[in-house]
């Protein structure tokens, strides 16, 4: 809802990729206010937005899903973004809605981000099919790790520049690097790997609708923690199978996650492994058997693995792996967010900025918090089953 970022894109090297008729901008921005984004700009631009969606959809032979990419802490992305979810759900009920959300880190500079995030979360819970939460701190940690590796100057460990998960294609070297570029590139790679099986051939394909089908056992529990490997490739071309197995182990290490969380010590509801490159089914099975004992799966989904094999690896790599986990480890993130929210809300700090927007009332806030509390409780209930022995339920008995 302000022009600066969009204008920059239109002047940059990808200007021809975007259709200028499909852009909507305003002047003043949303002032980091979810209410302004959601209620004010929502109603203002609803018709325009709907029309542009319809136009885009008409170009498609077969529309499968929408990707919504936004942050939770601001005003436009968070407010207007979640407004759009409802519009899409009404207009295109059969089309999946995948949301990539950047959650605010502990030390972010927007004071009202807890309000914005929690108000947005309620919408996500109700109208998104699948949410991939990401936080800036994790992205930053990944970059630091890569920088360390590149600059460490260890003998014999030169890194292929194109292969950095943070680098954009080598052809665009001249572009002036901006601070968040490297971090955003990681998210871009996530989306690339997510869609790779739909774009390229493979021996075991996985479309986007399969992600939702397999990883969302109950409609509310649709938050997936993602982790990406490898982060870089050494110039050593011969990769023995040990390195391949290392890739699988890395995917389950905290260093490669795009969200600060601890899935290994929490409960898995489901897990998807999307592999690209020259990896075969036996490699996949070997590694699943190897990693299974150290991970805890919920009792009714002990073999909750979904796998896909795509033959084409990403640029600069011979193979890669994206792991998506539906795991109760997202609970602490949500609880922390709720705490930050309550600290502000108890003092009614900054509340007037929201309440002065037409359509906003205190009930919006209380409903949002109870929606989040209910979600946390569902995760709690699942966690409680964690260390219980798996019981076989009595089966149907048949009269012979």
């Amino acid at each position, binding site marked *: 809802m302000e022009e600066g970022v969009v204008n920059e894109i239109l002047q940059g090297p990808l200007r021809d990729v975007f259709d200028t008729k499909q852009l909507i901008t305003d002047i003043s921005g949303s002032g980091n206010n979810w209410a302004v984004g959601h209620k004010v700009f929502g109603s203002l631009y609803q018709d325009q937005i709907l029309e542009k969606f319809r136009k885009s959809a008409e170009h498609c032979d077969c529309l499968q899903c929408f990707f919504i990419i936004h942050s939770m802490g601001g005003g436009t992305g968070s407010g207007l973004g979640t407004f759009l979810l409802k519009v899409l759900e009404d207009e295109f009920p059969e089309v999946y809605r995948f949301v990539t959300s950047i959650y605010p880190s502990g030390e972010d500079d927007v004071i009202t981000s807890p309000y914005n995030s929690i108000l947005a979360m309620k919408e996500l819970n109700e109208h998104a099919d699948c949410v991939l939460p990401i936080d800036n701190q994790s992205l930053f940690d990944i970059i630091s790790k890569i920088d360390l590796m590149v600059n460490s100057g260890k003998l014999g460990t030169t890194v292929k520049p194109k292969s950095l998960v943070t680098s954009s294609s080598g052809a665009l070297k001249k572009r002036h690097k901006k601070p968040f570029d490297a971090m955003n590139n990681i998210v871009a790679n996530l989306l690339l790997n997510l869609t790779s099986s739909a774009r390229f051939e493979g021996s075991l394909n996985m479309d986007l609708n399969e992600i939702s*089908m397999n990883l969302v*056992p109950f409609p509310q529990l649709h938050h997936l923690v993602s982790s990406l490997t490898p982060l870089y490739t050494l110039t050593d071309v011969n990769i023995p199978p040990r390195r391949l197995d290392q890739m699988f182990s890395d995917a389950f290490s905290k260093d490669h996650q795009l969200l600060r969380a601890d899935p290994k010590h929490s409960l898995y509801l489901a897990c998807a492994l999307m592999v690209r490159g020259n990896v075969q089914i036996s490699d996949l099975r070997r590694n699943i058997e190897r990693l299974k004992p150290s991970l805890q799966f919920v*009792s009714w989904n002990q073999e909750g693995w979904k796998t896909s094999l795509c033959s084409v690896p990403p640029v600069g790599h011979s193979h890669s792996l994206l792991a998506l986990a539906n795991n109760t480890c997202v609970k602490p993130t949500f609880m922390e967010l709720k705490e930050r929210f309550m600290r502000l809300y108890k003092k009614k700090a900054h509340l007037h900025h929201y309440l002065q927007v037409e359509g906003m009332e205190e009930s919006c806030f209380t409903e949002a918090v109870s929606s989040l509390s209910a979600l946390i409780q569902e995760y709690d209930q699942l966690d409680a089953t964690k260390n219980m022995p798996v019981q076989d339920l009595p089966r149907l008995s048949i009269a012979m």
Partner: protein
Amino acid sequence: MSIVTVQLGQCGNQIGFEVFDALLSDSHSSQGLCSMRENEAYQASCKERFFSEEENGVPIARAVLVDMEPKVINQTLSKAAQSGQWKYGQHACFCQKQGSGNNWAYGYSVHGPRHEESIMNIIRKEVEKCDSFSGFFIIMSMAGGTGSGLGAFVTQNLEDQYSNSLKMNQIIWPYGTGEVIVQNYNSILTLSHLYRSSDALLLHENDAIHKICAKLMNIKQISFSDINQVLAHQLGSVFQPTYSAESSFHYRRNPLGDLMEHLVPHPEFKMLSVRNIPHMSENSLAYTTFTWAGLLKHLRQMLISNAKMEEGIDRHVRPPLSGLPPRSKMSLNKDLHFNTSIANLVILRGKDVQSADVEGFKDPALYTSWLKPVNAFNVWKTQRAFSKYEKSAVLVSNSQFLVKPLDMIVGKAWNMFASKAYIHQYTKFGIEEEDFLDSFTSLEQVVASYCNL
């Protein structure tokens, strides 16, 4: 008589390609170990069953390819054309863009009715091309969305529209872990529906074939292509032409009918398995010789002890001695020790086949008490060798071998169903909890029937 193959979903299409390839390359093989006239008769029979002729002589597979997304079919078509030996018919495919999302309900309730007419049209055209039509061979997996859901729908339709023709479904049993999370749901829905509408279910387990690749073929990095080739080899050794009777001179004309007649005497028992020996890598083949006695002894022990390949067979399992009181009902809690059969068919191909002695398979102890071996056991012998193996034996068996895996899948699906996980994905498209309960009931029935043999 000709067989029309329907390939459904990624699995069905990938396997279908390997099957036709295997059939044709065996047919062209120069190591038939028989006279030229013999070989020509074999080739002609194989061609008639599975291929139709085009003007320029390139055989066209009698197949219909169905998938809900285009990538796999395109690949399959081009691989066949590239081989130069055969290809698929130009108009024999039906394809959509969006896939089934691993959702049985979507395949069955949405894609099925929506595309019923187009798919049945293509099938009808293929059937009309046959001078004399034997039946359908439907290749699908149980774990996904298209093969399983749409496959069940299409089979039901075939039952309605071609009630006089036979249908055999080739179903892939998924790996125990790590393919699709909702595979147990998809499997029980598929099996319960197919039990009603199909005439025979030929089941192959990915886990078993994977072991064959690893232990017997010594493949280090096993790909799906390797697995599908082993599968195609097994199917080829069943479906390639065989002689009608002990000393007749022409090949059987009705492959599906003959198989069904011998193997499915009772509609409650439709699950068939295939065991094929020997199985080894080409390198090892050059250094090994076989005797019929040796092969048949292994095969019989594999049948009794429920082994899936010729390594690691439990030699201590023995059939009960006749004259003892009938065994108590098989308990699922203990290891299955003795595999009781309803019907067995042994197909022998190769050198000196007439000398092979199959008396071991006629032991009444192998069979359930209400069938005599003379009815339950059959053997087909063919001089012409199959695919580089000087002697090969294949056992198609209707026995208790799949009871444990079936029971396991039903158990896991039941546990998941109790927590209601993923059910909303199915009810969204019209498959309700009652449908699930119906499926569970039918399959518990099947398990109980087999256990009581």
